[in-house]
């Protein structure tokens, strides 16, 4: 049990909206090991984003237990990558990426070093001093990812980060994400609608039922790494897993 990073037991979240009580998700139990890449997949409204927010500490669970192992107190436990419009419009690329580091009051020299490193890693060097409104959607998401990685958290939480991008940018960023992740060995929890994306990226996929979300199934993706987008779909496992997930997902979506 030593390498368990996140353990959820019967985790449940309910909201009160006006006079009604809405259950976002219920009875979620799973174990995530350190360094694993997990995807949460499910139909719209199944609560996967809410689950991510509870994991991030932005919401409190209503019931159940959530255990997250914080190995190094000097590093942040988790950093979230939100969707495209979450980088600050009033800061340039450099300052956006530095945000977590500045909030932790690190030394300016160290901050500059780390920021420059990730700017280079994400191919943002010519845009270092640009403002978000001057950037394309793909560029903005690169900034968002750089900001999270620069903060050096133990867990990376990603909320459909590529949902608003065109196909080409999506594919490029998926590859870049894997590359930068493989060097860092962080635990990742990635929420997505796309089965294809989930299979390409993850070690394990948690498929949720439709609202209120429960676990429908957990899949092991044993495709060898490093994975390449060019031939992922010709992997023998790919088709089977895709069919399996899709038939289950379709059940949830069509009812």
């Amino acid at each position: 049990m030593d390498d368990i990073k996140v353990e959820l037991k019967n985790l449940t979240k309910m909201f009160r909206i006006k006079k009604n009580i809405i259950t976002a998700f219920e009875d979620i139990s799973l174990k995530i090991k350190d360094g694993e890449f997990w995807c949460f997949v499910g139909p719209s409204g199944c609560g996967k984003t809410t689950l991510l927010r509870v994991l991030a500490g932005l919401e409190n669970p209503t019931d159940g237990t959530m255990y997250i192992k914080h190995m190094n107190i000097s590093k942040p436990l988790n950093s979230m990558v939100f969707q495209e419009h979450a980088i600050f419009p009033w800061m340039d690329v450099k300052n956006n990426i530095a945000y977590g580091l500045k909030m932790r009051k690190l030394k300016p020299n160290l901050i500059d070093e780390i920021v420059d490193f990730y700017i280079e890693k994400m191919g943002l060097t010519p845009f270092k001093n640009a403002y978000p409104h001057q950037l394309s959607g793909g560029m903005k998401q690169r900034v968002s990812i750089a900001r999270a990685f620069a903060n050096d958290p133990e867990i990376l939480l990603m909320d459909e980060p590529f949902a608003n991008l065109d196909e080409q940018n999506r594919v490029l960023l998926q590859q870049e994400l894997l590359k930068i992740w493989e060097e860092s060995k962080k635990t990742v929890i990635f929420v997505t609608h796309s089965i294809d994306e989930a299979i390409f990226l993850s070690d394990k996929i948690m498929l949720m039922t439709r609202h209120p979300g429960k676990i429908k199934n957990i899949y092991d993706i044993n495709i060898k790494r490093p994975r390449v987008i060019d031939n992922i779909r010709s992997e023998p496992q790919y088709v089977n897993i895709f069919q399996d997930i899709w038939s289950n997902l379709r059940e949830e979506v069509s009812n």
Partner: protein
Amino acid sequence: MNNANILKKSNVSIKTASKSDKKLKDETKSNKLLEQIISPITIIIIWEVLADFNLIDTRFFPAPSTIFHSFLSLLTSGILLNDLSISLYRIIGGFIVGAVPGLIIGLTMGLFPLIRNILDPLVAATYPIPKLALMPLIMIIFGLNDLEKIIVIAIGTFFIVLMNTAAGVINLDKIYMDVARNYGASKKDYYLTVALPGALPMIFTGLKLGMGMALLLIVAAEMNGASSGIGYRIWESYNIFDIPAMFVSFIIMSILGYIFTILLDLIERVIIPWKHS
């Protein structure tokens, strides 16, 4: 056709292509300037012609040439500049006296729900009272002087700046708060690095609207208990039926409004370089 001719011909055709490209660019540039000047000039010309041929009642719509003469005499007698400086003093004074509290209270209301809930009813109750209706009370309290006029303008500016400032903070996308929390920002950090910069565009909108309100109110404020000022000049011209002088004042006010807008736009571009142009 020998080779030299063919070469020459192709050279000529390349040159021609770039020449017409440049011509197109120049034409577009000078066209725009021309188009922008053409309508005011045309209006002035038509107006002058109509006035000279008595096709419009020049008692109420004096010819541009008459207005210009009035302008010159007001200028050379020093009256115009005196009016302008006195009114500017009241406008800018009123704007600052109104905008500063508006900004401070607006920010606190935006950032602290408790304060917002307490003050909201007060604002909602006092804002709808027309400032002009309050003028007699203000005149009694402060007397008939510059301070009273500054107060009148300040009250008008205050509400507009307050409401836009508070809205700027409140309407900030909630996701920025999530980002701030997730990346370890303290409350103070949040106010300084997220709430304040994020609210700036709406704050500037409030300032521009507030300035417009100040210009509006100067005419009302200088209606009573004034002996000089652009607004005063309008009412005085009414009293002595000097319509050309009245028009001069209208034009001065219009130019003032234009200049203030340009100034605020410039300041905005410096303070908010990140806003979409």
